[in-house]
Each structure stands twice: as structure tokens, then as C-alpha cells.
């Protein structure tokens, strides 16, 4: 089954206070920055066109897609996660080209602070859109009783955690996200830039658990996997 979803602002509106806290590293937030980010959020909402495409797939089919150009790490989290999954879906989501383009326009117009704030908000909204698509996929599977009540969904994307970015090619061939305006360049770059793609994995919370001790973990600067695993091991949504 393939679904195209549109989303309301409320389903992926970044929390400005959370972004500001990250920006100032826990220091008190100056009013001038709060004003800048609130303006950027309003600007973003006037430009964003949120959409996602979700296509269910089998584990066998996904393994072929995941193999891609054969450039994945020899051992990676999805190798252990996929066999534990109850349901899988390919997905892509975007906040649209206008928001992505406006960032460059603001820099070109000599408004770098506004461009920077808009970039942060658009990136956060894009990531939240992946979560929103994951939630719809979970609700659908739960309604069908295809997954347990405690099931949780996490998105995993090419370019992260050992899944080589070249995997975008086979992912795009299978998913065809051109339907919502997302295209792929020869260097595996998505347009609009503020887009996200990958696989949605539904399964019981422990299905998402892995030890972040792979070779590539040494080069990782974000360690976001820890927060993601923690989020699914808490009470189910």
C-alpha cells in the first residue's frame, strides 16, 4: 500500500524555545534571538508545504533496496533491526521547495541571521515530518492489528549509521517520491533540500535497540541513536 499524506502545521511545527535552548547551550535566551526565531517560524509557516509518501514493503524487498550500490558498512544497526521488525515502509517527506529556496535568498539579500534561523527551523520541521509520517504508519498498522499495542516506529535514513547515502538510488526507484516533488541528483542529493527519506521500522521497543559500537560510531559527532533508542523504550505513544 502506498499513501501520500499532507500535514497540517500543527503536526510538525518546531518548538522555538527548544531550538533556542539548543542554540544558546543552556544560557538565558536573549529577547533579540527569541524575536528572530519567532519571525523565522512565522516566515516558514507562510512558505512550507508539508507532504510525505509512505509505501509498505516486505523485509525481503527491503533487504534488496538496502543493499543499494553495495557500499554499506560491513555491519550496521539495520542488519539487526530489520529481522526484528513487524512492519516496514519506505518513506520520503518534504517541507517543499519554497522554504528551502528562501534560505538561500535571505543570505543573498544580506539577511544571514534570518536565513540561519529559517534553516534551523526548516531542518527541525523536516525531521518532525518524518516522525509525523512514522506516527501515521504506526496508527495504520495498529488499526489493522498488524503490530502490537506497544509497537513503536522509528525512521532510518541512507547516509546515517552505516547505510550508505548511495542507497538513495534504490530507495527512490522503489518509492518514486517524485509524486510529492522530491527528486534525486546523481550525487544522491534530494531536492528540495529540506527533505528526508528512508525506511520506517515498526516493532516492539526492543526491536530498535542496538549497541552503538560499530566502526563508524567512532566518527559520529551527534550520537543521536542514544536519544532515539531512549525515546522508544519509554512508554508507548
Amino acid at each position, binding site marked *: 500500500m502506498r499513501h501520500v499524506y499532507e500535514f497540517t502545521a500543527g503536526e510538525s511545527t518546531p518548538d522555538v524555545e527548544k531550538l533556542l535552548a539548543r*542554540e*544558546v*547551550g543552556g*544560557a538565558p535566551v*536573549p529577547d*533579540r*534571538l527569541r524575536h*528572530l526565531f519567532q519571525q523565522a517560524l512565522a516566515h516558514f509557516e507562510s512558505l512550507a508545504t508539508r507532504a510525505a509518501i509512505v509505501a509498505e514493503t516486505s523485509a525481503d524487498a527491503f533487504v534488496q533496496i538496502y543493499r543499494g550500490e553495495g557500499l554499506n558498512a560491513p555491519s550496521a544497526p539495520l542488519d539487526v533491526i530489520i529481522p526484528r521488525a513487524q512492519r516496514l515502509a519506505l518513506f520520503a517527506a518534504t517541507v517543499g521547495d519554497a522554504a528551502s529556496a528562501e*534560505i*538561500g535568498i535571505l*543570505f543573498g539579500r*544580506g*539577511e*544571514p*541571521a534570518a*536565513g*540561519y*534561523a529559517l*534553516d534551523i527551523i526548516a531542518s527541525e520541521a523536516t525531521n518532525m515530518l518524518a516522525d509525523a509520517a512514522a506516527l501515521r504508519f504506526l496508527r495504520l498498522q495498529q488499526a489493522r492489528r498488524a503490530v502490537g499495542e506497544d509497537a513503536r516506529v522509528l525512521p532510518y535514513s541512507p*547516509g546515517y549509521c552505516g547505510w*550508505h*547515502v*548511495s542507497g538513495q538510488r534504490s530507495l527512490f526507484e522503489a518509492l518514486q517520491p517524485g509524486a510529492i516533488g522530491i527528486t534525486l*541528483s*546523481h*550525487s*544522491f*542529493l534530494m*531536492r528540495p*533540500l529540506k527533505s528526508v527519506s528512508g525506511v520506517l521500522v515498526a516493532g516492539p521497543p526492543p526491536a530498535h535497540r542496538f549497541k552503538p559500537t560499530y566502526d563508524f560510531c567512532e*566518527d559520529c559527532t551527534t550520537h543521536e541513536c542514544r536519544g532515539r533508542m531512549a525515546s522508544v523504550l519509554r512508554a508507548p505513544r
Partner: protein
Amino acid sequence: MTTPLLDGISSALQRGDRDAVVALTREAIDAATPASSLLNQGLLAGMRVVGAKFRDYEMFLPDVLLAARAMTAAMELLRPLLVADGVPLAGRVVLGTVKGDLHDIGKNLVGIMLQGAGFDTVDLGVDVDPDAFAEAAVTHGATVIGMSALLTTTMIGMKDVIRALEHRGLRDRIRTVVGGAPVSQAFAVEIGADGYAADAPGAVALVRALARVSS
């Protein structure tokens, strides 16, 4: 030597108040303030304070960008006078995102912060051909090339830029700086780049050091 007017420019710059910086710069020009004083005791003095406060977590990246925006606007008034007086800029840097990559936020941040540090920048944009980097460096007399990439598939293009400089016999004259999410110090060493910066402030410090060496 500072004056209340130059101090005012520095203060307005620290607040990121572009309109005030432009108005005070115009006033200082009308009062026949030497262009070099206006640059060094007014604008760059203010940017130095911004840089120190940023380092000490008293100001944040958007503050630096607001200050740099004000600096850029003032430089539009000041640049012709600096040229006429023969006052040298900190240096000229060619910037671009390498072939196949369309990400430009990091490169733009570096550009605006280099301008704020008194550098002249030539921004080639995104998806830039290796030869175009080398060509622009020659055409504009730049001593440093800054390259950005956000993908592991495009970062290898940085090596092509260095090769293009080698083919033109420019490798010893033009320094190369690389940055972007997948790029590392080890990668910079591997491809023979002169430096790697993890963020925009780091890039400014690196370019400043390399420009000094080049000159």
C-alpha cells in the same frame, strides 16, 4: 586612536544594529575620518568584541551574523575609500560548495563571517566545477579557496579542486580550506588540503592564519 564616533560604530556593530552602523559610518566619512581608522578602530574593533563574546558564550551565532550583516553594509560605503587610500583588506577568499552538492548554509555562514573579519569574499555558489575554483582564484587574486560539502559522495570533489590547482602550478600560492558535516581533519590531510575547520568561526581563524602565511 579612537573617537566617540568610532566607539559608537563599534558599539552599534556589537548590537547588530545595521541602520545605526551605516548612519554612523556615513557620518564618519563626512567628517573626513581616515578610512583605515574607520575600518580598524570602528568596524573591526566592534567585530573583535563580538568574536570574543561569542568565544565566551556571551553572544551566539545569530548575534555574530547580525553584526556581520551590519559590517557588510558599512563596508559597501567604505570599500571605495579603502581602495582609493590603498588600505589593504585582510585578504581575498574564493568560496564554494563542490560539484554535485547544493548545500550552501555552511558556506554562507563562513562567507558572512569572513566578511565580518575584514576579508573580501568571492562566492561561487553551489555545485561548483573544480576548474571554476582555480579560475576564480586567479581572476580575483585570492590567496585562499574555501570548499564546502555536505555529502560523502561529493566531498571527494575537494580533491579535484586541489588537483586543478596543481595542474595550473598554483598549489604553492593558493591555500585550500575544507569543511562540512562529513569532512574531517583526517580527510583534509588525506587529500592534501591546507586546513580543516569544524565550524564557521574556526574557518575564519584558519583562513586568517593561512592568509598571513600566504602574504
